[in-house]
């Protein structure tokens, strides 16, 4: 279990047996979400139905102040909830990456940081998941990332973002990088 320092966010993670297919990963993430909701005193009867905003972000009709996000990749699952703003989380396994994809989604500052990085794979997927978490918090489609326009500066080991009001945090879970974005109310 990995902890997020910010008390406004409750996070749960787990590892599934190796080779778990998409359906099992998806179920794993929603099981974590249900556990968090139960732990925080949300009763399933009061949550209402699971619905989606215009651009796909899921929400419970009976709990408009509750924001949640789930992610899964390979055998890793995570879920997070908050009642303090809009939440987005994203995880990716650290591996070799496509330069063409980096050029498509990263800003000049981010590309320059990556060129000088001693751990470019980890830094690339940190940047990628940060952007995805922001996109998911906004409620847009995952592929709307370039339109989000947020630029990250990871120099000095700290996350600085051009989106001033947003809170970001990252953690490494073995070979997985997990990013969290909260857009406070």
């Amino acid at each position: 279990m990995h902890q997020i320092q910010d008390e406004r966010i409750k996070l749960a993670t787990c590892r599934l047996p190796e080779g778990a297919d998409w359906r099992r990963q998806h179920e794993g993430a929603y099981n974590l979400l249900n556990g968090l909701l139960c732990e925080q005193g949300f009763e399933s009867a009061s949550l209402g139905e699971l619905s989606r905003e215009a651009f796909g972000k899921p929400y419970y009709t009976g709990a408009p102040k509750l924001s949640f996000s789930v992610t899964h990749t390979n055998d890793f699952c995570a879920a997070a909830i908050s009642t303090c703003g809009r939440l987005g989380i994203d995880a990716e396994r650290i591996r070799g990456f496509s330069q063409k994809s980096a050029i498509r989604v990263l800003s000049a500052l981010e590309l320059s940081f990556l060129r000088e990085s001693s751990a470019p794979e980890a830094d690339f997927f940190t940047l990628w998941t940060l952007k995805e978490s922001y996109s998911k918090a906004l409620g847009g489609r995952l592929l709307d990332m370039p339109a989000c326009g947020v630029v990250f500066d990871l120099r000095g080991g700290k996350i600085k973002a051009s989106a001033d009001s947003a809170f970001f945090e990252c953690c490494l879970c073995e070979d997985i990088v997990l990013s969290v974005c909260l857009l406070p109310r």
Partner: protein
Amino acid sequence: MLNTIRKALLEYVEVEEESITEDTEILQDLHMNSYDFVTMVGEIEEKFGIEIPDEELREIVTVGDVIKCIKSKMNE
């Protein structure tokens, strides 16, 4: 063209080749994640010598959309 896109997709998702049709939704039906999708599009761009701008990338939902986009770029 459909077979080429099928092969590209099968590098990233585990489904039966024949189950991929022009109506298949790439993110919704194949559960492809956005990094893999962007990377696959980059490979398609290189293979066909085309460039798909972000605004057009965001409009792609189905396999048929990818084929339509490639054909339109190759005719430009």
